[in-house]
């Protein structure tokens, strides 16, 4: 079950046969699935990114900066 050969090591005829076998429905769906998973991952990630910078972070930097300028020299 787990002894799938790395694609690069398959002999060319086997590889071609495998591709042909997959070229119908399963292969297409497989790529569709992969694309869909990628889209969902980015959608989830971008949803957070689009929230921008919460105030606590800019405030923290401001605070550190004003402390810093008071303390140094």
């Amino acid at each position, binding site marked *: 079950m787990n002894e799938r050969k790395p694609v690069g090591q398959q002999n060319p005829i086997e590889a071609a046969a495998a591709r042909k076998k*997959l070229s119908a429905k399963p292969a297409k769906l497989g790529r569709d699935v992969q694309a869909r998973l990628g889209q969902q991952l980015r959608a989830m*990630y971008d949803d957070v*990114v689009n929230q921008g910078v919460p105030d606590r972070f800019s405030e923290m930097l401001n605070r550190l900066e004003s402390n810093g300028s008071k303390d140094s020299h």
Partner: protein
Amino acid sequence: MAMDESVRKAILGAVPSLRAFAISLCGNVDRADDLVQETLLRALANIDSFQPGTNMSAWLFTILRNHFRSEYRKRRREVEDSDGHYAESLKSQPEQYGQVEYREFREALSQLPQDQREALVLVGASGFSYEEAANICGCAVGTIKSRVNRARTRLAELMHVNSAEDFGPDEQVRAVLAGGE
């Protein structure tokens, strides 16, 4: 801690993406924001070790990831039930996908092994190259590639357990999802 304006800009500019990465690691928004805050404090305390001209974002991701590894991982078990919390924190569910599918996806992502999840997010969502992701994770480029491939395969398995007949035997699905590698 005198802060160069360009440094300040670069740090703030990286915050949204750092948060998204942190949430994918923690699965909990409050914890993720604490992680980001601690990351920024560490970064500023060590700003002298940042090499100007290199990628600030990658540098911050590395600090965040290492800090998470050392501090947060052991606490993770306590917050495994954070899914609902995460959902609430999002302003809106992405509209182009059904809610069920979106929930399934997050659930599947949370079930991935840590190594695979972070590799997938860094490459597939944060937009880092395999080389950058390898630097951030402190491993070889080939290791990142294999983790990303395994992550994709596993996600597909987790999300399609009920429609396996559409995809043929597991072997075929794996072969297709493994793509170029």
